[in-house]
């Protein structure tokens, strides 16, 4: 089921195009990454999704409800954190959650304790927010997004301020939410590596445009990697890989191809059958991350 659908969404602020005709979707049970360097337009896009920004153009639907015409219905099915989790600092974490629950009804109140224990804050939930570290605030931020058991979770750079263990825990939480409860997760980050392993798909955004959309291997224990094949006939090798549906680049005396580890023996056999002389195979150190950097750093890394 399509939980989130953006169709040609644009945002102009003071005559500057911040987001340019973005289209994307998030389905239930899916974790979708939204990756781009600082200033790429991630927060702007998410603010439009959550109703904090008006749309200059386009259409956004959450669980089928157009946010411009059915805002309240749409918001019942989505939870999220935008930028820093700014909560009410003078009151306790619990009181914050109680306050936000009041917007959803009784069920949300009942969810407070389970959600708090899910984000592992049960011990300190009655302390004032101002005594929390950024990581703890992130946890409460996630908790408030889950109070009403939303179908769609939207998180804007949730790994900020989390320590490596916290990041690992967050990944696991999100993974179980999506796989066990069928929640769709849309998660932005400026670091692909932090979310890559849990994402089913990623959209890469730069300068307000989506420049890449990739489907990642569904099983993270068998990720797509890039291999360098030292071959006699590069053109022939390339033709073979393309025929197999694998991404391929040819260089002098060797060919780069992307495939899962399991597919490597098959490729060796296939190349031999094709009449390609294979001298050696090695794992090329380029990952998606490297591509990402390549893709987004076309302007000397200047932030726009």
């Amino acid at each position, binding site marked *: 089921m399509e939980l989130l659908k953006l169709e040609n969404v644009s945002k102009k602020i003071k005559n500057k195009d911040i987001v340019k005709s973005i289209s994307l979707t998030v389905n239930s049970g899916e974790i979708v990454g939204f990756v781009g360097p600082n200033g790429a337009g991630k927060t702007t896009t998410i603010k439009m999704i959550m109703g904090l920004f008006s749309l200059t153009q386009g259409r956004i639907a959450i669980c089928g409800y157009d946010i411009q015409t059915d805002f309240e*219905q749409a918001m019942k099915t989505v939870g999220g954190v*935008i930028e820093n989790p700014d909560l009410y600092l003078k009151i306790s974490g619990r009181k914050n959650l109680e306050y936000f629950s009041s917007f959803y009804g009784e069920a949300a109140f009942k969810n407070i304790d389970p959600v708090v224990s899910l984000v592992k804050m049960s011990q300190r939930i009655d302390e004032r927010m101002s005594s929390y570290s950024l990581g703890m605030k992130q946890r409460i931020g996630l908790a408030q997004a889950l109070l009403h058991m939303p179908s769609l979770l939207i998180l804007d750079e949730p790994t900020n301020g989390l320590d490596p263990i916290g990041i690992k825990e967050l990944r696991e939480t999100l993974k179980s939410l999506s796989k066990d409860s069928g929640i769709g997760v849309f998660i932005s980050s400026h670091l692909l590596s932090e979310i890559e392993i849990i994402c089913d798909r990623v959209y890469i955004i730069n300068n307000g445009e989506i420049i890449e959309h990739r489907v990642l291997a569904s099983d993270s224990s068998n990720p797509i990697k890039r291999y360098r094949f030292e071959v006699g006939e590069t053109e022939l090798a390339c033709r073979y890989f393309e025929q197999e549906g694998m991404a391929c680049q040819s260089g002098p005396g060797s060919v780069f191809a992307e495939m899962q580890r399991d597919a490597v023996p098959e490729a060796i056999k296939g190349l031999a059958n094709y009449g390609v002389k294979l001298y050696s195979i090695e794992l090329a150190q380029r990952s998606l991350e490297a591509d990402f950097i390549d893709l987004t750093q076309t302007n000397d890394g200047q932030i726009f």
Partner: protein
Amino acid sequence: MDFFKQTATELRMLFYSRALTVLAALVILVSAGIPFMSKFTRSRMRTVYNNYAFMKSDFGSEEPIIVDGITVNPDNPMFYEIRYMKETIINIESGSIFTLSTEGSAKAAIEIAEERIGFFAQCAQHIKEYSYSTDVAYMSANLVAESYVLKSLLEGSASASDLEAAYMSIAYSHSFSRQFIELTPEEQQAKLDDINRRIADTLSYFQTKEIQKYVMVKKCIENDNIEMFKMQIADLEAEIIKNPIKEDDLSMQIQELAKQIAYINEINIPMLDFREKYSIEPNNDSWENAAIASFESNKAYIFYNEIIDREKFASQQYYTDQYKTYEAYVKAMQQMISDANINILISQRSLETGKPDLAFVTDGSRYMAFSFLQSSFVPTALSMMAGGFILANEFQSGTIRLLLIRPRSRTKILLSKYCSVLVFSILVFALACLVNMAANCLLFGFADMALPKYTPGGQQGFFAFYLPKALLCILPLLFSVSFVLIVSVFARNAALSIVVPMVFYIASFLVTQTLAFSPNNAWGWVKYTPIPYYNIASLFARAADTYTSYMSRQVYSIPMGIGILTATSAAFLAAAIIRFKRLDITN
């Protein structure tokens, strides 16, 4: 339903703010404390007043004077008079008073002075401190001199000219000969009897403190004054016939004197009648005296403020500046006169029923509770802070981002925040009024609350009078919360949204104060702004009125204030909602 629940939740959030609750508690505490403070200052002021130097004799270090076996101590109010007369005698004996050139006149003057000393000494037996009685004693001192003159004339013991010189050196007469010499011996005898009776009455009043005697004595003094004014008028009329050129000037003087006679007849005499009828002793702090004083001042106001005619109005810069048109002037004057008449009515009703209006019991719980409404600016200021805190701070702290992603329209969210702030301020205000009233009742008596408030049409219970006014005081709260709301939404800065309305609030006070002292037409447009109605309680008519509020009431009306405060509040709220609905949350 949802909306009320949400407002309740927002209200609870307000109470979570420690700073705000501490502030609210402080306001309520101060409200309860005000009656205690005012009780303290009142008793303190009374002590200071009683000890005030001029009230006591300055001659504390001098020896007491003994007259006819009566010891007059230096702290006695009569001491100074006696001493002065003793000095006069010494001066006469040394021949330093040149009007007393003959032996007979000097002798008569000394005897008059001695008579007076005797009279004062007798007064001193009963008058131990300054009071209404003291004034009566001073005013009656002339009687002793008159009695002496008449006695001497009847006995032939001194010549008329010696007596006149002696009399004039110590007392005063507009026309000595008409007052004493031109009378037939029968008339002189009758007058002497009358004066001796009056002296006896005066002394017996001092002794018994009987109101009837006091009224009698005072009425005679007033009649003396009337007689004197009449004599002066007769003289002036004669002068006009002799000197027609001066007619304008002289007839104006006659008018003045006639007015003074009328004042006595219309104001002083009825006041004495009140005292007699209701046994109101002068010189104490009773409400009856306050009622009589109010009767006097309002009567005097009407007496001295007649509506001048169009020509005279046009010729007086002061009036044209103040009122612009003659019609406006007449309207204002009629209003003031009608106010004064109502006050007179209230005095009379209070005296008739024996149940005082709150205006006359300034240390009563009703008056104190009513006056407290004027302090409603304290909760107003508090409500601004609450508003600033809850609204602008959402933007500043970024919590707005987590707030607006809820399944609620922005209008609903803003309205429930607005209502919660309003309810919070009203709660604090109501609680402040309540604890203040309780403390007042405790300190100044519960019984006072049961007394009525008089209106032109009759009377009403205190709460029927008080509650509508207390409710009116909510309007400034409504306005200031709306003000904070609009600044919050447009400036999105907590400090600004408190400071801007605060500055406006203080400025509005200053402007209203200043305008009260400046001609009406300067800044005439101000009355179409919320400025003069910010402290709407200042427009309530009160007994102990300040000049500012008195002047303000001439220009600014409460119905207008209700309209303007409501309209601006609604406009602010609408503008805030419209702006908020399309706002991009950039924080």
